[in-house]
């Protein structure tokens, strides 16, 4: 992000920069900039940056929630302990499956739904209204609503299955169905936003491209593959990766649905960390988990960014 070195700058590129001795005008501009930025910067520093840095640091301490306990720096002790904590690594794996499945399946379904909404079918305005509701719904309400749907005795899902003679399933309470059931809810709540964004992306692809391809004799499938998908790719990749990170870091819906149960089958890392911090009161250890999660995300992100960079280089 640094400015280009002066020697590399084009000779006529703007006024030369002077390091020392700002003129009165630059000074006034600097004061203006500070005045514009302070109201937002103050809360950012107090409630976001300091907690962020402190959170990273707490991972290297033995902090607890007890009021007068002294916080001691313990180096990598927490991380050594964490390396052998099977429960944490189990939850890490569950978190990857959860966030990965939700992001991938949401992306695929959203493409399909956006294509349908972009076609000449009827009922599109009805679909648009319905798409709006899950998007606006508070996550807690989403959790409550799906608990009712999945309920063993009074839920409509089991009632519908009983018409086909299928026995009751305890969707959120059974070891084998809990995680898939939670993933379905994740898709349900993320699908609307992804679809609407993809739809907007599709509509920004120039229609002439489709017409030209059609004139060349390309059928619908080929046009989708060669025109729509490449045009959509930047939006799709950006949304899917943000979706993955959000789901990996958040636990609201899972907390309301299962609280991590049954037997830890849906215990995703942020939920595990939350319980460690506020039920077991082990702040230092919980923060170390948070540190590991950040590292993991940064690692995944950097692999992705390096790939993007390479593709850009090869492609152009």
């Amino acid at each position: 992000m640094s400015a280009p070195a002066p020697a590399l700058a084009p000779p006529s590129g703007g006024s030369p920069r002077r390091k020392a001795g700002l003129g009165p005008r630059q000074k006034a501009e600097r004061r203006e900039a500070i005045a514009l930025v302070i109201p937002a910067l103050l809360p950012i520093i107090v409630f976001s940056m300091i907690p962020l840095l402190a959170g990273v640091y707490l991972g290297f301490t033995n902090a607890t929630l007890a009021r007068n306990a002294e916080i001691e720096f313990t180096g990598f002790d927490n991380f050594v302990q964490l390396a052998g904590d099977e429960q944490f690594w189990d939850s890490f794996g569950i978190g990857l499956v959860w966030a990965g499945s939700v992001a991938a399946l949401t992306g695929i379904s959203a493409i399909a739904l956006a294509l349908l909404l972009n076609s000449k079918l009827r009922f599109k305005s009805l679909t648009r209204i319905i798409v709006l509701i899950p998007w606006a719904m508070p996550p807690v309400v989403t959790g409550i609503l799906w608990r009712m749907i999945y309920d063993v005795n009074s839920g409509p899902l089991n009632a519908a299955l009983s018409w086909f003679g299928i026995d009751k399933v305890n969707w959120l309470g059974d070891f084998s169905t809990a995680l898939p059931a939670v993933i379905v809810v994740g898709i349900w709540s993320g699908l609307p936003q992804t679809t609407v964004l993809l739809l907007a992306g599709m509509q920004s692809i120039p229609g002439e491209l489709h017409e030209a391809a059609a004139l060349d004799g390309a059928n619908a499938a080929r046009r989708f593959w060669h025109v729509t998908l490449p045009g959509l790719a930047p939006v799709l990749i950006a949304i899917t990766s943000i979706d993955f990170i959000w789901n990996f870091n958040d636990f609201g819906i899972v907390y309301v649905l299962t609280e991590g149960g049954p037997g830890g089958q849906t215990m995703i890392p942020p939920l595990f960390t939350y319980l460690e911090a506020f039920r077991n009161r082990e702040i230092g250890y919980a923060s170390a988990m948070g540190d590991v999660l950040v590292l993991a995300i940064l690692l995944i992100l950097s692999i992705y960014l390096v790939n993007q960079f390479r593709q850009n280089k090869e492609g152009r």
Partner: protein
Amino acid sequence: MNTNMKTPLPVTVLQYLALGGFLLFLGFPVLWIVSASFKSSAELNSLSANLIPNEWVFTNFTTALERQNLLTSAGNSFLVAVSTMVIAVIVTLPMSYALARLRGKLRAAGTVWILATQVFPQILIIIPLFLVLRTLMLNDTLLGLILVYVTFTLPFTLWMMQGYVAAVPRELEDAGSMDGASRFKVLVHIVFPLLRPGLMATAMFTFVSAWNEFFLALVLLQSPELFTLPITLRAFLGAEGQTQLGPLAAGAVLATIPSLIVFSFLQKKLTGGMLAGAVKG
């Protein structure tokens, strides 16, 4: 688009089937909870998949509002959401201008920070945040929650607003300053009025975020009389078997209405803002 192309009939049938599947998947759960809010408790506990209640009951709503301090929580949520909205707008406006107009290090730092907040799990921030609020004597207060909400919506609002600022032609500002008006006057009289539509969208977005937010409120509020709506609704769930499904459904339906209203106004603008960020950001 492709106006001269005829879609073969089987494809059309498949398309309608797929659309129907999506409608069922997205719409049925919503219809179910609305219908549950009008069902009697006897009907709710029986294994029947009636979408239309046998007997329409309205007591769930009155029970929910009367008994389970839902109204207090709704009041808290409203206060928090409106305050967050007002403060966020006041704070976002000048900084988004700075981000859009003053290039260089500030912009780079702002972008990095916005990205960082998306990558860090809130759980890592919440623990020290809890301690910071305790130090400032703001723990377990609505003011503390409001300030935290303002801060946490800033990445998105700044991102959105700076796009709107960038769309204002610089020439308008230059013309203003040629006439001898100060930068401040130019901002207040020329730039800010042009930003009104974007500002409305940003304001409504912060309202919905604060209204729907669950996790930060869960950790930062301890006194039941301060609980926001999501926290109280979550508490409705209670122990297995004790849950009163009817009032719970009624409460959930009521909690969705405000953000649904705001969202229906907001949808188009929000999409535009997010898309601009995703592609150009």
